[in-house]
């Protein structure tokens, strides 16, 4: 009995490979009872793979896994659940059209001679929701709840399955600060009851606020296990990126303001733009070489604004001018023809073609604009793919790799490449840094600044205020699906933006 008495989960020498990628190479990972353990690492470090092996989504190629000292070998998520490992994945995986109660009890519905006992199910769902301090009508469909509530429902479901080991993959990426606080209170309560919790997140603040220990992975290898209290932040970040990081330049906008200042006329200008159920009365302008941020809480109308501009939804009020000329778009095709580009927030559903190659994903938009006849030659396609794989540092075994096999940050880079080959005049980036790690974030920010310096107009949407403040020379602030104000130049600060979001009644 060499193992520590309190080890709840003990993974030793875990190995997992995919075609062309060694995702995990001999990783150790130990979680104790009554512990919140953060799993950290850059894109492609192997966090998601580790979680998926642990929860039985992927079979492992080597190594041992023990739960409470007993060797386990989950071959499906259901088996992992039965063993006591319950998981909430990064993309909330509930079934939108089923009710909250059905989602919580799915696969474990209380039955009576094969018939579902609906009352019992509702009671059980309510009980589960009470654990996450949530009170709502469990008969309503999940689709009608906000993403934050959906996240809590998913956690309630996981708790209802098992309390032994709870795995949370990016649980806070769609929650606002208050909701994060509430979630953490729940996690602390569970920790007090003996649950081991594994949390994967990219928010350093949250890691330090909640975790007891941190395990860092890099390129599929274990860097080390640390006690959170004894690991300085800078040390953690350099462990993750594997080098001494240089902080992104704080005053990027100040330095080159002079050259880009020739803003004769805005490239895009919208006035009083709106649509029922979308946003109301949006005013916004972006000039060539300008990086404008859209800030606001989740659901404040940032994505909706982007959809109106890009012609996905049609505006019902107001007008849009491109190069001073009045225009309106009925489809993304028209927007693309005007030189617009848009990387959507939900890259899996609206962005990538998962089973198609990196090459095909990159050339798609350009080919669509050129039409059927002018086929981009295979040679040219490969040149473009190679060029952007190099330029954006996309880590892939090659241009023919299916994009679905890449990590989130690399998928985001492929999407960026898809638009950069079309040489757009206006680039709309909706949460380009969501769910990706520090290193890739810095790279995407750097690319944005380069493009802006080359004269591209960029509309940057992000829920991380720090990022918006650092990158943008002008910030439009939204609240409750309307614009509440605008900040420019040195007037931009996180504090001011938060004030604008928080203030009520007297907007602009």
């Amino acid at each position: 009995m060499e193992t520590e008495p309190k080890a709840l989960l003990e993974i030793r020498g875990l190995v997992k490979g995919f075609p062309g990628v060694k995702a995990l190479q001999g990783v150790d990972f130990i979680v104790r009872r009554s512990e919140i353990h953060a799993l950290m690492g850059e894109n492609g470090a192997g966090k998601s793979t580790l979680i998926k092996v642990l929860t039985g989504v992927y079979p492992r190629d080597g190594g041992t896994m023990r739960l409470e000292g007993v060797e386990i070998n989950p071959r499906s998520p259901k088996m992992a659940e039965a063993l006591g490992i319950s998981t909430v994945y990064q993309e909330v995986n509930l079934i939108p059209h089923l009710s909250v109660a059905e989602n919580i009890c799915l696969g474990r519905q209380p039955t009576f001679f094969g018939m579902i006992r609906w009352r019992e199910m509702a009671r059980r769902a309510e009980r589960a929701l009470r654990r996450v301090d949530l009170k709502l009508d469990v008969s309503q469909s999940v689709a009608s709840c906000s993403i934050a509530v959906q996240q809590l429902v998913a956690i309630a479901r996981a708790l209802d399955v098992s309390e032994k080991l709870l795995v949370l993959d990016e649980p806070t990426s769609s929650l606002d600060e208050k909701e994060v606080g509430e979630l953490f209170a729940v996690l602390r309560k569970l920790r007090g009851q003996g649950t081991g919790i594994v949390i994967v997140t990219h928010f350093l603040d949250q890691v330090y606020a909640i975790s007891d220990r941190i395990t860092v992975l890099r390129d599929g290898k274990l860097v080390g296990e640390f006690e959170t209290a004894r690991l300085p932040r800078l040390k953690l970040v350099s462990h993750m990126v594997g080098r001494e990081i240089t902080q992104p330049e704080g005053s990027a906008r100040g330095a080159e303001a002079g050259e880009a200042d020739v803003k004769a006329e805005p490239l895009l200008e919208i006035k009083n733009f709106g649509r029922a159920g979308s946003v109301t009365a949006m005013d916004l302008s972006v000039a060539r070489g300008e990086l404008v941020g859209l800030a606001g809480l989740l659901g404040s109308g940032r994505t909706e604004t982007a959809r109106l501009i890009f012609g996905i939804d049609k505006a019902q009020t107001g007008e849009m001018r491109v190069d001073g000329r009045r225009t309106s778009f009925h489809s993304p095709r028209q927007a693309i023809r005007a030189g617009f580009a848009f990387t959507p927030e939900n890259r899996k559903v609206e962005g990538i073609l998962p089973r198609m190659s990196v090459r095909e994903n990159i050339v798609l938009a350009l080919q669509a604009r050129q039409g059927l006849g002018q086929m981009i030659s295979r040679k040219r396609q490969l040149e473009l793919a190679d060029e952007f794989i190099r330029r954006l540092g996309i880590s892939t075994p090659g241009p023919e790799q299916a994009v679905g096999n890449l990590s989130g940050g690399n998928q985001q880079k492929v999407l960026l490449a898809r638009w950069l080959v079309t040489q757009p005049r206006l680039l709309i980036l909706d949460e380009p840094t969501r769910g990706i790690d520090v290193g890739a974030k810095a790279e995407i920010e750097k690319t944005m600044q380069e493009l802006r310096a080359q004269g591209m107009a960029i509309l940057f949407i992000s829920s991380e205020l720090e990022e918006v403040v650092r990158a943008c020379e002008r910030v439009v602030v939204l609240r409750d699906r309307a614009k509440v104000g605008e900040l420019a130049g040195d007037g931009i600060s996180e504090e001011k933006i938060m004030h604008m979001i928080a203030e009520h009644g007297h907007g602009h």
Partner: protein
Amino acid sequence: MATERFEKKQARWWSSLVWPVSGLALLLLFDLCFTDGFFKLEVRDGHLYGVLIDILNHGSKVMLLALGMTLVIATGGVDLSVGAVMAIAGAVAARLINTTNVSFPVVIGVTLAVAIAAGCWNGLLVGAFRIQPIVATLILMVAGRGVAMLITDGQIITFTEPWLTYIGNGHLLGLPFPVWLSGGMLLITALLTRRTALGLFIESVGDNQTASTYAGVNSSTVKFFVYVFSGFCAGLAGLVAASNIKCADSNHAGLFLELDAILAVVVGGTLLTGGRFYLVGAMVGALFIQTLTTTMYMRNVSADIAPVPKALAILVVCLLQSPKVRTKFSGLLKRRGS
């Protein structure tokens, strides 16, 4: 670097064909061992005859249908109406030949135009009105035979016009004409999808329609086109079918062939969920099905029970294609070996 990538691509191209081809090879091996005269070829009047030629000849209808069906399935749809469109095409051609004296090219032109119109109908329902493909094409599948009946006044129209009978029974350079027709169409379809960006657009729409639309691909038009093309292919197959038996039989022409075409596409490795498509694979699939049918016939399996062994053989090929079954199977072999 460049050669390495070239090899990688080659390997992928072949790998998609491995399972359908090995299925077909297994079947041919069985026939080589147990079915007399299966591989006998002879030359009569300068034409090639033999069971293998018959398979190519009779398989050409499903091959033609499978070409259109592959593209439809690649967009994530399905076209159930192709059998009915075959019946309509046969009816139009027979009616025109017998009751008017328009020239032969006009007959072919009008027939194919009607088939294309049928495809447009499907394409509109699916592409523009966003009706689920299975429902949208079911409408024409059910109504199509009625339309064919209306055209032929409920009669079976026979004809003797030499050009029209040539399509299904004639020979060109030693081979039956339908073989040339389906081979030519394969070539045209491959050029159309791989030498233009159409193939990329079809695969992208099938893989992720929303993402394709946001990238500027006109998804509705792409979908519309594949149904039109499928209608056109069904028109050609309908001409061959009518010509084969020198009459237009609205009740039986192309009956259940849509199912064979779908099977051929699936056996060929294209997923019903859309995305990557394999034209050559679908052709191999069509030949596999026809070889099965011919084998049953030659081994005197009664027509009533022939579908059972046929279904079993197709099941085996589909299981071979399932990665899950394959890993289980190879694991089993390894354990045996060690």
